[in-house]
């Protein structure tokens, strides 16, 4: 694992319709980091990911990827798993997974035929098995439970082996057994591909278990008369050492100390 700066966020401001959401966010992330992001609901975590993905443009500030400004639109070097809408409803599970392959292989039709298609389908077999969907390979997303859909979405985002992976509460809808499996899958791929991961989660245990770095978003300034007046920023930025993971004290500390807007208001 190198420690070169992969991604650098410099004094980022973001507002929607004049209401500031994020302010003065600065961050340097080295290649191969696994940043887990926690924060109060509605504080702008998803917005931050959208900025990293170039889905939205920051009001002010810069984001550098490998030292150059981010491309102006989403590119395959940054994968994403959203809270919802992440899989294509008109494609079966298997088709969802070979899609990226098809895009790459045939620029005109965007489709594989015959043996090439068979091969692509074979290639995803192990992945299907790993996410426990091999029996459902020919079902459409609408025929899957919410959890199964989310597993598919994660697998789909991993298939292009992106250098930067953005995850927005990807495991929220999964049961603990599958979740543990997905953790493992994600962890292995992270190591394998030396990905830089940003993951928003509400589960502080998960944040500690997976992350190498924990980012806590919150508002530092707060005007009780106008709670919308200020945006959130990174209030804690904790490196997590391997032996910290699962450390119950730290967990308690982090959950206890994390400031809570709802309780304030």
């Amino acid at each position, binding site marked *: 694992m190198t420690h070169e700066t992969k991604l650098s966020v410099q004094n980022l401001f973001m507002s929607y319709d004049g209401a500031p959401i994020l302010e003065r966010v600065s961050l340097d992330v080295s290649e191969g980091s696994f940043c887990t992001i926690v924060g109060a609901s509605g504080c702008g975590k998803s917005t931050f990911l959208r900025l990293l*993905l170039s*889905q939205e443009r920051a009001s002010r500030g810069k984001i550098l990827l490998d030292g150059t400004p981010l491309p102006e*639109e*989403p*590119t*395959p070097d*940054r*994968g*994403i798993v*959203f809270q*919802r*809408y*992440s899989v*294509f*409803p*008109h*494609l079966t599970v298997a088709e969802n997974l070979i*899609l*990226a392959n*098809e*895009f*790459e292989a045939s*620029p*005109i*039709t*965007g*489709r594989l035929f015959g043996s090439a298609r068979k091969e692509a389908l074979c290639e995803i077999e192990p992945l299907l098995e790993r996410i426990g969907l091999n029996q459902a390979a020919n079902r*459409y*997303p*609408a*025929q899957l439970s919410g959890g199964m859909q989310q597993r598919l979405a994660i697998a*789909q*985002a991993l*298939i*292009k082996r*992106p250098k930067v992976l953005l995850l927005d509460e990807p495991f929220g809808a999964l049961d603990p057994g599958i979740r543990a499996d997905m953790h493992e899958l994600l962890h292995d791929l992270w190591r394998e591909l030396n990905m830089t991961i940003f993951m928003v989660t509400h589960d502080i245990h998960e944040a500690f278990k997976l992350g190498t770095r924990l980012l806590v978003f919150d508002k530092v300034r707060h005007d009780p008369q106008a709670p919308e007046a200020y945006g959130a920023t990174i209030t804690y930025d904790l490196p997590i050492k391997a032996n910290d993971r699962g450390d119950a004290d730290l967990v308690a500390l982090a959950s206890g100390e994390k400031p809570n807007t709802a309780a304030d208001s």
Partner: protein
Amino acid sequence: MRIINLRPGRLTSLALGIVPFAGVIIAYAVASHYRRLENPADKLLPSLEKMGEAFWRMAFVPDRRSGDLLLWLDTFDSLMRLGVGMAVASLLAITLGIAIGFIPHVRSSLAPFLATFSLIPPITILPILFISFGLGEVSKIALIVIGTAPVMIRYTAQSVLDIPREMIIKAETLGASVWQMITRLVLPQVLPKVISCLRLSLVPAWIFLISAEAIASTSGLGYRIFLVRRYLAMDVILTYVVWITLLAFVLDRLLLALSKRAFSWNHLERDSL
């Protein structure tokens, strides 16, 4: 139990469905009966037998003047026009609809024009249609296309806009080009919508077809209706109306079946009418 949670069984459902049809037929038969009591030769509400006879005559007795079986000739000609017109309209809807819905610059350019154009009642500009397309088949098809395409294009464009932004972004992260997104994501997700829109457009399409055939024609269902209106042959008119309704119904069901077969993923989630 609340009435909204009571679901009628199959038989009840069937019986309930038949009631309004039966009601209309009975009301017609009674009205017709009383009118014919007054004037046995009444043309306005002919008896059901007379309509049956008219159907028989139009369908199976060669016409005195031309020797054709008029009903089949008319049906064939009208369906050809309708088919070509709807095919052209669908094609326009798919190409322009996706362009407008997907590409902001095209949207800026064409959406306002299309919105305005779709507001022009086409029958008012018939003379201009004639000089542009002549008086033959083309102008009839053009009337159908002009009458139905703008709505279909708008609807398709809206369906494209309704695709969650997240899916498009996901596709971008999977390395799709604009063209690939169109062929693999937008088109397949929009096609079932185009078919539902096509189903909805069939009714105006029939109206425009019939109007077009009333203008200058030598065959077609609309032609026949307007021709026999000249001597108030309501037996033929009503037979043709029933026949058109039947044809429209069959077309509608065929399109639905096609959609269910080709886009099964789109019919998994919820009830539709």
